[in-house]
């Protein structure tokens, strides 16, 4: 009896540790960000100026927030036709076949490639190819980063929607076939409507992934600290500016980078919670 109680206490306290971990993370990020918010107030979020010159230091997160949203939305849009087709390939057209198993394995492997390797490939293969077809800025920029990000989030976007699509009850599809529908019509009027929320949740989670990707983006986005003016211009994301400028940072600049980290933490937290909520509602 006594040992049972000890076991239960151990299990309980370990899970409390998880909660404390999360609370501690928030606490430390807020603590580290306070100097920046004290100095700049809410303008930290809405200011587009990032000036590390000593004596005239001014830090605003807007260029990086905009850069993050542009690369992530760009990645989402670029990945959509690819990952959606792949989900249909795996979950509908070739479900259960050997070809689908192999394709599924390869898509999973995409998730296994380290971010830095994506960055290298983007830098040495993708970028020259883009220059070849007439890209300016030596091939760096939001678009290049979004392109590599799109490839990186494909496995996340695909795995959930593929699973949900393959779970659409067969008798519903057969009912549509029995009314004379073509396969495409079954997909558009039965499969997709029935799998809709799962598909949406998958893309939300994939978007959350894109927001925080660091290395590959850092290597391709061009690392400039102004608000990006176009999809083909250069910029920085919240993650890439932290990776890029952390080495030489202290004082107010360090606090500003931590504040950007805090914002990133909150944004990804909200996006992920939203995705998970949709999945939970579905069950």
């Amino acid at each position, binding site marked *: 009896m006594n040992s049972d109680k000890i076991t239960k206490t151990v299990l309980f306290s370990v899970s409390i540790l998880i909660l404390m971990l999360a609370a501690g993370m928030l606490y430390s990020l807020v603590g580290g960000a306070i100097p920046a918010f004290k100095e700049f107030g809410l303008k930290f979020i809405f200011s587009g100026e990032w000036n590390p010159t000593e004596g005239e230091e001014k830090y605003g997160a807007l260029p990086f927030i905009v850069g993050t949203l542009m690369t992530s939305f760009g990645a989402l849009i670029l990945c959509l036709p690819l990952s959606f087709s792949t989900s249909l390939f795996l979950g509908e057209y070739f479900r259960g076949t050997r070809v689908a198993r192999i394709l599924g394995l390869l898509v999973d492997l995409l998730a296994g490639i380290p971010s830095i390797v994506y960055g290298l490939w983007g830098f040495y293969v993708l970028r020259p190819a883009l220059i070849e077809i007439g890209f300016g800025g030596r091939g760096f920029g939001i678009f290049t980063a979004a392109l590599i990000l799109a490839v990186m989030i494909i496995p996340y976007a695909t795995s959930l929607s593929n699973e949900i699509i393959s779970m659409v*009850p067969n*008798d519903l599809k057969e009912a*549509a*076939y029995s*009314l004379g*529908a073509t396969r495409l019509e079954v997909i558009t009027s*039965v499969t997709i*409507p029935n799998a809709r929320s799962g598909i949406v949740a998958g893309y939300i989670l994939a978007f959350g992934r894109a927001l925080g990707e660091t290395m590959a983006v850092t290597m391709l986005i061009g690392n400039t600290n102004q608000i990006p003016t176009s999809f083909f211009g250069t910029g920085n994301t919240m993650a890439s500016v932290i990776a890029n400028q952390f080495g030489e940072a202290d004082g107010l600049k360090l606090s500003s980078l931590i504040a950007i980290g805090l914002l990133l933490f909150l944004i990804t937290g909200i996006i992920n919670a939203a995705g998970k909520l949709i999945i939970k509602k579905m069950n």
Partner: protein
Amino acid sequence: MTNTIAEVKKPILSLKDLSIAYDKKYAVKNVSVEIKKNTVTAIMGPSGCGKSTLLRALNRMHELYENISTEGEAFLNGKNIYDMSPIKLRRHMGMVFQRPNPFPTMSIYDNVIAGYKLNGIRTKKKERDEIVERSLRDVALWDEVKDSLFKKGTFLSGGQQQRLCIARALAFSPEVILMDEPTSALDPVATSKVEDLLVKLKENYTIVLVTHNMSQAARISDYSLFMYLGELVEYGKTKNMFTNPIDPRTEEYLTGKFG
């Protein structure tokens, strides 16, 4: 049109040496039979005898699955169904499934009209309203759902859902309605409602009904097929088969020796 005896006897569907195999293993072997117009024909037999497999060959459902192959011929009003496009064929052959399966994302109205929408057939709103009302009246569901046509069909009871599915199949005015144990998921009251409906529907349609329930076959079918291990053992008027079966296997099944 008045149904004379001769017309009732006219075959609408004739199968010639129809065989169906799953991964080269035959589930239905050389079935030849003529199904008569405006009748209810029951396909009976113990589970695994191939009765559903045979039924699903009639609207070429098997072609959705690569591991199933069909041999032989089948004619609808004298036309070989394997020469038609399966899409067109399926409009002549309505299908009702074991479990009620209304489309959960569509309203009751949209479920009934789904065949038109899926096939991209443009209709005027008035026409659609008429089709929906007629089909729902045909299945005696109109009075129960006319005030909630634009709600999702999923709140209906199992029996109502199954009648909705029958209405969905009727909306196209098919010639034949294929039913795969349509009452197996329903309670006795809902079952008897559906059975009454089938007897009424044969005035305008031909019904092929797979059932594992002998008394159901006896109650509502005009003709019966008895299948065993993929073969057609016996075919004839239901009355004759139940009172005077020819094949000993049929007799054993009907007297409950196996099944």
